């Protein structure tokens, strides 16, 4: 009874900062909206921290974020009734958050042109008509810091857990991974290992794991050659700017985010994403890390079967009882473990951090999705 009371108090303590942030962040220019967002995000944080199976709430949240993202794009394209209007609109609002027709004080959302001044690719622009090059840097130190700091902080704080909780694209493959029965084996992409009790475990071949790094390297090199910011590869404005690009992206999404996740129950989109590769490279310095308790783990391999990123392998468990750099901190292994051996910790310590992680993630989601939420509010509100 006392422990339940204590856990509720702890959940409340972790909820208050989330609700407070939502109130401060969303109350300008509509105070009632700040109150509403504080209530929604606060209640949800309290519920998810208290939930026995956090996945049951995390999954709808994650899929819902994809819904917000998709709804935003479709609303702008279809309400304005053409893609050119969307591109015009996007280029007009590259600096700041869009708040019902006005730009406001917070410059946080990374839009294409602002980003291009920071990231590799538009350091120099070639003008074929005059045959000249214009070297451009961030328009001001202020703009540079306002874009770079949130990016860096989010990446360092969350690492690849962005792919498991915050990424707007991740919700689509997550939604497609329904049921437990895998219909396609895709053996040519897998390596199999047999563990103690003759159980056969499937992992990904090394080259498949490296595809995302190859795509990242190619993106960076092409960014230099085509004078194009690599990060724009993941931007809907870029997708809609050209018909061939649009169909290539749609094709990739259909195969890697719809068909393969549905047929195999794994997240294949994240295996080719260059941004995911970048996040994976920060794994060694990430604050929140999953690992297993050596005394409790009985090598049942339930976590390995459950992992949708192929981040857990028998070899990895034998070596250091933790997943590889592809771990997205979704918490599936934590909830499936019958011995309660897996958990999320601060660095490599034994201090459990899952509730604090969820609370911080909610703050990050509230901050990063402002752009989408206010566009939707502007279109339908």
């Amino acid at each position: 009874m006392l422990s339940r009371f204590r856990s509720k108090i702890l959940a409340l303590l972790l909820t208050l900062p989330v609700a407070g942030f939502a109130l401060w962040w969303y109350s300008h220019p509509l105070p009632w909206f700040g109150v509403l967002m504080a209530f929604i995000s606060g209640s949800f944080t309290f519920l998810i921290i208290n939930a026995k199976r956090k996945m049951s709430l995390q999954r709808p949240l994650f899929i819902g974020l994809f819904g917000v993202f998709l709804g935003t794009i479709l609303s702008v394209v279809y309400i304005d009734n053409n893609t050119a209007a969307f591109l015009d609109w996007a280029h007009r609002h590259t600096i700041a958050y869009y708040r019902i027709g006005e730009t406001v004080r917070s410059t946080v959302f990374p839009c294409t042109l602002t980003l291009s001044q920071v990231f590799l690719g538009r350091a120099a622009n070639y003008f074929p008509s005059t045959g000249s090059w214009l070297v451009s840097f961030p328009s001001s130190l202020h703009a540079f810091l306002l874009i770079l700091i949130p990016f860096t902080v989010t990446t360092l704080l969350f690492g690849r857990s962005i792919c498991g909780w915050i990424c707007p694209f991740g919700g689509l493959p997550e939604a497609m991974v329904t049921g437990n029965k895998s219909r396609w084996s895709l053996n040519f992409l897998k390596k199999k290992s047999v563990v103690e009790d003759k159980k056969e475990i499937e992992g990904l071949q090394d080259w498949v794991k490296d595809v995302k790094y190859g795509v990242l390297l190619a993106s960076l090199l092409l960014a230099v050659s085509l004078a194009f910011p690599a990060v724009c590869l993941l931007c809907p404005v870029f997708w809609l700017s050209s018909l061939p690009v649009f169909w290539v992206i749609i094709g990739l999404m259909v195969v890697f985010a719809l068909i393969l996740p549905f047929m195999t129950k794994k997240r294949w989109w994240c295996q080719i994403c260059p941004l995911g590769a970048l996040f994976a490279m920060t794994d060694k310095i990430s604050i929140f890390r999953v690992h297993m308790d050596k005394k409790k783990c009985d090598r049942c391999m339930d976590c390995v079967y459950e992992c949708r990123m192929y981040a857990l392998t028998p070899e990895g468990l034998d070596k250091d009882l933790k997943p590889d750099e592809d771990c997205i901190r979704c918490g599936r292994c934590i909830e499936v473990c019958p011995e309660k051996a897996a958990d999320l910790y601060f660095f490599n310590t034994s201090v459990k951090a899952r509730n604090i992680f969820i609370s911080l993630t909610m703050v990050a989601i509230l901050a990063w999705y402002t752009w989408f939420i206010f566009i939707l509010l502007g279109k339908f509100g």
Partner: protein
Amino acid sequence: MLSVILAALAMGVGTILSCAALCVPLVMPYAATADRPGFLSGAAPGLAFSTGRLVSYVVLMLALFFLKSTIRENFLTIAIVNVTSGLVAILSGLFILGAFKRFPAFNKHYCLMFNGTRSPLVLGLLAGITPCAPLFAALAFIMTLDSLFIMSLFMICFWLASTLLIIALSSMGGVLASLLSRRVGLERVRRIASIAIIVIGLVLLIRGLSGFQV
């Protein structure tokens, strides 16, 4: 003659931002796929690529000299060059990745065709006939020259200046790959570089097929 050499060198250096930016990404991953990556092995694909470009430049120059007319490269030629470059890069990346091991006949055939620095050489040949603003400027300049010797001198100086950066960056790629291979393993560096080559090949292919809308 000095003015011709200086003009050629200046025009060649001028390609560093545009042409070299297009060529370096194509060569850099090859620098990382050597058996023992390092400064010299990194320079090899850069040199092979540049040699390919030189051959193309010489062909273009001779054509100009003998035909005495401006070479017009139409849209279809550019598209074909891009599609071919894309296919060469994709096949080359797949070969390094070991995708053809299951098909010994094809593997052997491909090995004879594009092994070692042959792929960068072919890509260099194709890149040499891909039009870019500095190349057109150089071709326009040699149209004003009468002697084949002066024209050749101009083209060689132009090529030398434009090649320096490619070879330097390619060597740097080799050194970088060597450093990385100590940390993550040579096999992995080769694998990642070959996947990058395939992706770049795919982009070239799509660019060619889509009529440069990408």
